[in-house]
């Protein structure tokens, strides 16, 4: 056999492999309760041409995002299951942070201890079974037993009883005025384990999965018997595209209709026929200060540190001006009670430090009793804007006499758990269920899980205890205001920017819609085909 023969064989093998590519994508399918073969056939039919020609006239919404869930199970990916319109909770949070009914038609209580939930009369699981009182009781009990975080929202000692077909009674050990908010958490989504279902669970949402490749893509189809009527789109295709530039290019080319998590710097010139929607979110970027060690155990340093940072500059350089500068845990415009914000005041920052004995040394760094005003600011890469913000803060405060070293942490929680840290960038959704108490309870009170800095204020702790049982709405609001004033006066943390939610869509495919501040609500009835109008 001569060389030409070998080359011919090589070419035939490689060409054969290439040509065969068109038939090989059936192996990307998995699915519970469906044979691999069947799933493969479905997938080949559905996605074989998906990247080439997909008609939007059929009512299909194609989404490119930075995330596709790894599983469709409530224990692992409850957040995503609600986010993508698969599952629903009894209540949900509106764009202005008010509780509104969802699977529940109403929730009432005389004493905030015994709650009566009236269910919709037409809600069903995907298998057609009604979402009746017995099913809701079973679902809540299942969540309390199986989901570690569920008892934070619903006391595990609750007594659940199906009064009649549409009425559930919850008897709690103590008054819980925020129960309607708590029932909006994804940890308490309504489900029935069902091994025969594609996802292994029956849910109630407007879209149900027919194909799912973990961390890659997911195809949803409308659940026609959804209680709110047939969903606007017949199908939703979600594709994971990690690179933000590639997501926007796919939108421009018309291969997708909607792109989530658009980086602020790409939102300015999206291209013809593309609309960008921005809204402030309940996620806040802030700096946790260590109150237990120098220099932040000195109130003057905390105050100067906070009021000398120009949030507008941070917003401009890190988020192209699309974020919302904030001086407290709640950004303006979210419908939450807020106090008058502090203001940038470089002169006061300097005088506060001077009065506290922090004088400028020969090298421009302030010092007190021979100790320089130096600190390490931790940051992390998974939120790309945070390191940029850290650098700007280093520059701004350097002019005031702070000597800041930036350290990128591989594991920010572990780094902040080290009692010796000085300050660390952090980012949390501070109002996930419309209840402003959450921000204080998880980040600021003595036992808060994210109170890494050891901040402590007795009155703040008392307020949060009072709010657990305070039923009067105006009194609750007054307490929330007082709590914010305490946090502001103590300069407990340095709040910086409310991160924006940015979504881009093709105007020929999707009708104009209002973006929810909480990305838990991503695919719902507000997303409609362009032909249906807004």
């Amino acid at each position: 056999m001569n060389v030409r023969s070998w080359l011919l064989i090589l070419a035939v093998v490689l060409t054969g492999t290439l040509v065969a590519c068109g038939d090989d994508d059936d192996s990307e399918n998995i699915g519970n309760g469906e044979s691999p073969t069947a799933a493969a056939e479905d997938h080949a039919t559905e996605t074989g041409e998906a990247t080439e020609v997909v008609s939007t006239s059929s009512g299909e919404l194609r989404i490119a995002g930075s995330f596709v869930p790894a599983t469709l199970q409530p224990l692992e990916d409850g957040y995503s299951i609600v986010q993508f319109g698969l599952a629903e909770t009894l209540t949900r949070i509106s764009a202005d942070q008010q509780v509104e009914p969802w699977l529940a038609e109403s929730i009432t209580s005389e004493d905030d201890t015994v709650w009566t939930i009236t269910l919709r009369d037409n809600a069903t699981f995907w298998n057609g079974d009604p979402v009746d009182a017995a099913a809701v009781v079973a679902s809540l009990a299942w969540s309390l037993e199986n989901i570690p975080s569920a008892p934070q929202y619903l006391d595990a000692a609750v007594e659940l009883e199906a009064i009649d077909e549409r009425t559930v009674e919850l008897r709690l050990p103590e008054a819980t005025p925020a129960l309607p908010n708590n029932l909006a958490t994804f940890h308490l989504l309504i489900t029935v384990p069902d091994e025969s279902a594609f996802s292994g669970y029956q849910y109630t949402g407007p879209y149900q999965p027919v194909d799912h490749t973990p961390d890659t893509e997911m195809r949803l189809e409308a659940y026609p018997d959804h209680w709110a009527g047939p969903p606007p789109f017949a199908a939703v295709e979600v594709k994971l595209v990690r690179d933000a530039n590639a997501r926007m290019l796919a939108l421009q080319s018309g291969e997708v209709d909607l792109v989530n998590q658009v980086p602020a710097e790409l939102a300015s010139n999206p291209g013809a026929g593309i609309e960008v929607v921005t809204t402030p979110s309940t996620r806040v970027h802030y700096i946790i200060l260590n109150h237990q060690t120098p220099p932040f155990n000195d109130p003057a340093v905390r105050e100067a540190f906070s009021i000398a940072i120009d949030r507008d500059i941070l917003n401009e350089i890190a988020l192209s001006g699309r974020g919302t500068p904030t001086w407290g845990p709640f950004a303006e415009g979210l419908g939450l009670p807020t106090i008058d914000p502090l203001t940038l005041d470089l002169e006061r920052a300097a005088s506060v430090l001077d009065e506290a004995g922090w004088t400028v040394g020969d090298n421009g760094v302030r010092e007190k009793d021979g100790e320089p005003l130096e600190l390490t600011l931790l940051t992390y890469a998974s939120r790309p804007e945070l390191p940029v913000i850290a650098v700007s803060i280093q520059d701004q405060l350097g002019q005031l006499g702070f000597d800041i070293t930036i350290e990128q942490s591989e594991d920010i929680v572990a780094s902040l758990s080290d009692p010796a840290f000085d300050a660390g960038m952090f980012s949390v959704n501070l109002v996930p269920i419309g209840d402003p108490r959450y921000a204080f309870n998880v980040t600021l009170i003595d036992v808060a899980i994210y109170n890494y800095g050891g901040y402590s204020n007795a009155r703040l702790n008392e307020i949060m205890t009072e709010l657990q049982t305070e039923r009067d709405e105006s009194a609750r609001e007054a307490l929330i205001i007082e709590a914010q004033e305490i946090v502001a006066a103590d300069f407990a943390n340095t709040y910086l920017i409310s991160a924006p939610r940015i979504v881009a869509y093709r105007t020929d495919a999707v009708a104009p819609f209002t973006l929810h501040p909480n990305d838990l609500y991503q695919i719902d009835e507000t997303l409609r085909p362009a032909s249906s109008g807004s």
Partner: protein
Amino acid sequence: MARLLIMRIAAIIPMLVAISVLAFGLHSLAPGDPARLLVEASGLSPAPPEAVAAKRAELKLDQPIATRYVTWLAGAAQGDLGRSYRTYEPVSRMYLERLPATLALAAAATLISATVAIPLGIFAAFRHGTSIDRAAQFIAVFGAAAPGFWVALMLTYLFGARLGWLPVFGSVTPRGIILPALVVALPFISILTRLTRASALDVLSSDFINVARMKGLRESAIALRHALPNVLVQITPLLSLELAGLLSGAAVVEYVFAWPGIGRLAVDSALLRDTPVVVGFAVATGIAFALANLAADIIIALIDPRQRAV
């Protein structure tokens, strides 16, 4: 030949054990708590301590590394590479699900790079010192210097978003594979062109080529019958390594083109500390490289009779 095969295959097993020890050990010692990262990846960010504790217990991460490794090895010996911490899928199935897309991309990229680089390198050698030679070298330098993600985005912008000729997303279809394969092939075209040119220059100065010329053979005949076989002997190992490397995925390209390949799976799993997937990936990559090297040895032995006696 048979002895060669037996020796090479026998050497693969201890190599795979060594790879798994290294992968398991290094990955376990890396900073970061897998339980916390996995909880955060499910939407709970930052992760509540009780959820982290539950996840740690569930994954048996509180056991010593050695115990976990021995458990894994016992399963691997029976073909069970464990299950993903995240998706609970068997690692072998996750790998096999992504293998066709990875194979397709690797084969297409190898085909493109060989088809372009070998003729270009030989032609440049025949036209040594001319503008054609310089053009070939420019292509080689450009291919090596241009970052893959940049080339990917530029090609996507031009052919996908602007001209609309090709899909922005890669897919295992004739049209969908062109851009990803081209981007993956580009650096290999560069390396292969330079190596082919150097090898061809070496061969062209040999006595047997001078004899062929004196006998009056045409240049094309000299290139195909005499130069090419000798060049192939020298570049086959590189081609096999290229193929093996691509079988372990091309993460950057997979990210930009949303290509459902092994590279993206490996990177995502490494970032989320999904140890079973990472270790399985390391073992599978080791197998790919071992087999590719073996294939290269066989091909070289078939092309070059002198190698068969070794």
